[in-house]
Structures are given as structure tokens and as C-alpha cells.
């Protein structure tokens, strides 16, 4: 196997293993659109990173944090429904990112790479970011699994029972921002949410407990990465989208076999 393909596989597996367990929470908490918003805004993070000359992963994480805080603050505004708020933020951040990038004529930015990922160009330092960041996220998920779960089941009940709800919500947003930042280069800002949601949705059918669903989602994501990369190699298709197509096909396969209802 070629070196670059091996690196791509390792990077992809890193993304899948962390996006799955985080993704189940995104699905349970009905936050898919929230994930999309943070992901779209990551492009603005990249543009600002170039502009200020700081590490791009870092600038994306920082911008993610700022946006998460902004959304928490906007949450108090009941005049606009949340999907409208998210829609405004997602698309203005994406467009602002593109505009800021256009001003920087001195650098040629591989826009397609950021939008849809460039997994075959993954470097050793990218691998470090993906696996280092991923392990941090998994560690945090493991440590705070119980309160996060409790919060997801019933926020007010969790608060009365002593879960620090506001802090946990913030932590969850930070984890999403972190995952987006480290996997941006692999699957791209437009596709990263799909790696959280599709494997999680596919795992639902086979799961009888929250923990099981998280593990199965990670597994399905990993299979999708392997299949997608193989397909991309074989048919010379773009790697990131091929991985997402593989995940979608896996999801479709899990939906076959009639409506038996969830276990």
C-alpha cells in the first residue's frame, strides 16, 4: 500500500472513531443543524487563520468557541427560532470566510480541499492533530458520559439532580468544535457533519443502550472510511465524498429488512 493511502486510512479512521460517539449525541440532542453551522463557520476560521498567520486548526477551534458562546447568548432571544438563528450564522460565516479568503491574494488557498476535504494529502502533522485531538475528545466524552447522557434525556431533571447543565452544554459544543477543526482537512467543512450523523443513525437499529450505539457508530464510520477510500482508489473518485457515499450506502442497508421498530 502506498504511504499516502495508509496515512489517509489512519486519518480517516481517527475521524470516524471520534465522530461516531460524538455524533450519537448530536442525533439524540437534535443538533445536526448546529453541527453544520459550526462546520460552515470553520471556513471563516481558516480565512482568519491565514490573515493572522496563526495555526489553522487553532483558529478554527477558537472561532468555534466564539460561535458556540454567541449561540448560547442568542439562545435567550425567543423572537427568532433556533433554526433561523443557525441558518443566519451558518451561511453568513461561510460567505464571510469566502470573502475574507478572496482578499488574500498573496496566498493560493485550496478551497475545494477545505470544503470537501483532501484526505489523500494528509501529512504526518495532520495525523498528529487528528489522533491527538480525537483522543482528547474521547477522553472528555468518557469522563463526562453520565452527566452528558443525563442532560440529553431531560435537561431540567438533570439540573435538579445536580448536573452542571450550562457547563456541560458548553463542553459539548467545544467538543464538536474540536472535532470539526481536526477533521476539516480530511472530509472538509461541508461534509464533516455527515460523518457524525450518518454512522450514528445507522447504528440506531442495532443498539439497545446508549453506549452500544456510540461504539457501533464508531465501527460503522470506520467501515465507511475503509470502503470509501477503497472506492476512491479504484474508481478515481474524490476521497472525502466517497467516504460519505459509503456511509450513506451503509445507512441505507441498515434500513432494509422491513419496519420492525427499534429495539
Amino acid at each position, binding site marked *: 500500500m502506498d504511504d499516502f493511502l495508509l496515512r489517509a486510512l489512519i486519518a480517516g479512521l481517527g475521524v470516524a472513531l471520534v465522530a461516531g460517539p460524538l455524533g450519537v449525541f448530536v*442525533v*439524540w*440532542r*437534535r443538533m445536526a443543524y448546529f453541527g453544520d453551522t459550526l462546520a460552515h463557520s470553520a471556513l471563516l476560521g481558516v480565512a482568519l487563520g491565514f490573515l493572522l498567520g496563526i495555526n489553522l486548526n487553532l483558529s478554527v477551534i477558537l472561532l468555534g468557541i466564539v460561535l458556540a458562546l454567541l449561540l448560547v447568548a442568542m439562545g435567550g432571544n*425567543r423572537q427568532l427560532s433556533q433554526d433561523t438563528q443557525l441558518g443566519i450564522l451558518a451561511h453568513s460565516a461561510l460567505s464571510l470566510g469566502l470573502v475574507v479568503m478572496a482578499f488574500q491574494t498573496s496566498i493560493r488557498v485550496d478551497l475545494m480541499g477545505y470544503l470537501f476535504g483532501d484526505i489523500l494529502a494528509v501529512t504526518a502533522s495532520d495525523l498528529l492533530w487528528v489522533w491527538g485531538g480525537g483522543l482528547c475528545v474521547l477522553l472528555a466524552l468518557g469522563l463526562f458520559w*453520565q452527566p452528558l*447522557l*443525563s442532560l*440529553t*434525556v*431531560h435537561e*431540567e*431533571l*438533570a*439540573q*435538579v*439532580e445536580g448536573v452542571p447543565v450550562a457547563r456541560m452544554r458548553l463542553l459539548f459544543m467545544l467538543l464538536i468544535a474540536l472535532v470539526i477543526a481536526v477533521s476539516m482537512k480530511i472530509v472538509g467543512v461541508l461534509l464533516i457533519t455527515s460523518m457524525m450523523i450518518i454512522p*450514528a*443513525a445507522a447504528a*440506531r437499529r442495532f*443498539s*439497545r*443502550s*446508549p453506549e*452500544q*450505539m456510540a461504539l457501533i457508530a464508531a465501527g460503522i464510520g470506520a467501515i465507511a472510511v475503509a470502503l470509501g477510500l477503497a472506492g476512491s482508489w479504484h474508481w478515481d473518485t474524490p476521497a472525502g465524498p466517497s467516504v460519505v457515499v459509503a456511509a450513506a450506502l451503509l445507512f441505507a442497508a441498515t434500513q432494509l429488512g422491513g419496519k420492525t421498530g*427499534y*429495539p
Partner: protein
Amino acid sequence: MNEKMTPLLEAREISIRLQGRQLLERVSLQVGQGEIVTLIGPNGAGKTTLVRIILGLLKADQGEVVVKPGVRIGYMPQQLALSENMPLRVERFLSLGADRSASDFATIVDELLIGKLLRQPMQRLSGGERQRVLLARALMRRPELLVLDEPVQGVDVTGQAALYSLITEIRERFGCGVLMISHDLHLVMATTDQVLCLNQHVCCSGHPESVSQHPAYLELFGAPASARLAVYTHHHDHTHDIHGDVETESEEHSHG
């Protein structure tokens, strides 16, 4: 009730405005140990808002809530909007609130008759089953104060009576104070020590019998149903248990 004892919970002169609407105005209440206080009132009267303020989920504009230091609160929320996408069995749900290995886990499960439900998904429970599971989770925290928001919601009429008598039993067994919301005074008559009739402000309060005769109550709710309906008084030869299964009173009656 010993008047000199420190109440478990005291709310003083609570007022709140939300979105330009006065939801609560100078509402005060007390819950003492072993006492059951019921809030009744029409929809939009501010019952749930008051409970949310008492639980610290919402901040009042004026007034204060004093909970006796160190008091553990068990809370039974009105709704549980669980995503279909979350695989969650009853036993896992219960373990989120308390340790499964706790010595009284089994006792509470037996007492609330939810042993058969433990391995079922939360989403498949009937209304009455869900309420009992929620009550079990509240009890597993060994609360000194139970706060129940419409505990009989979605439960059929026989189940409602059974659930209320269970709440009375719990009060006696655990010696805890209970604050609950109900929509029907006549159902809680036998259960409750004190009733607060709420409609933004406290319209009237006191023992359930006196409240049911109070002009403010009658104005809000109209004459009691019993005065308008001819009640068919009869004796059952069986009762329904909390599941709705028939229990024959074999000791009192001999058939055939």
C-alpha cells in the same frame, strides 16, 4: 403540623413577568416535613412556572425561595420528550439519577411495580408506566422533598386514584414533604393536606374541603362536578390495581 418547625421549603412573595405578562404575583407557600401541598389552577395560572422557580430552574423577578439547608429534592417533571433515536431502557434511565447498586433500588422498583418494565425501552411505556418510572427515579434520590409536576398526566382514571394513594403512602413511608401540581382538586382531596389555588396570585388556600367551598375557587372552576352530575354510587366487587389488572377482593366477598 408543628408550626414552629422550620419548613423544608419556603417561597416568599414570588413575582415574575415573562414577555410582558405577569405570570406570578406575590405568591408565597410553605412545605413542611411530611406535608403534602397541592397547587391547582387553570391552564396558564403559573403553576409550572412557580415550580420551576422553586427548583432554581428559573429566576424570579422578586421574592425568594428558601430551601432548608442540605435538603435533597426529588423531582418528577411533567414531560419526557425522549428522542426515538436514543436506545434507553428503563433500568438505564433509572441509573442516571441514582446508583443502581443502591440498597433501595430493588425496594423502590417493587413498590412502584416496575420490575417487569426494567428491560423495556423508555419510549414504549404507557402513560401510567412512564409516570411510575419517573416517580421511581425521584424516589431513588431518597428525597426529603418531592416535587411532582402533574404526576397523573396521561394516566387513566383508575390509575390516577392508585397513583395518588401511592403518593400518600410514600409520604408516610419516607416522611418527605410533597409539593405537587394537579389539575383536579377532587382527585387529590383525600391525598393532600393543603391546597393552593393559583391564578397568577394565590386565590385561596387551606384544607381541601374549605378550598372547594371557597368563592374564589368556585369562580375559577365552577361548581363541583358532583353537584352537576348525578353520581352513580355503587360498590365494586373488584378493584383495579395500578396496572389496570383486576384484583378481586376475595376476603370481603364470597362469590357464588
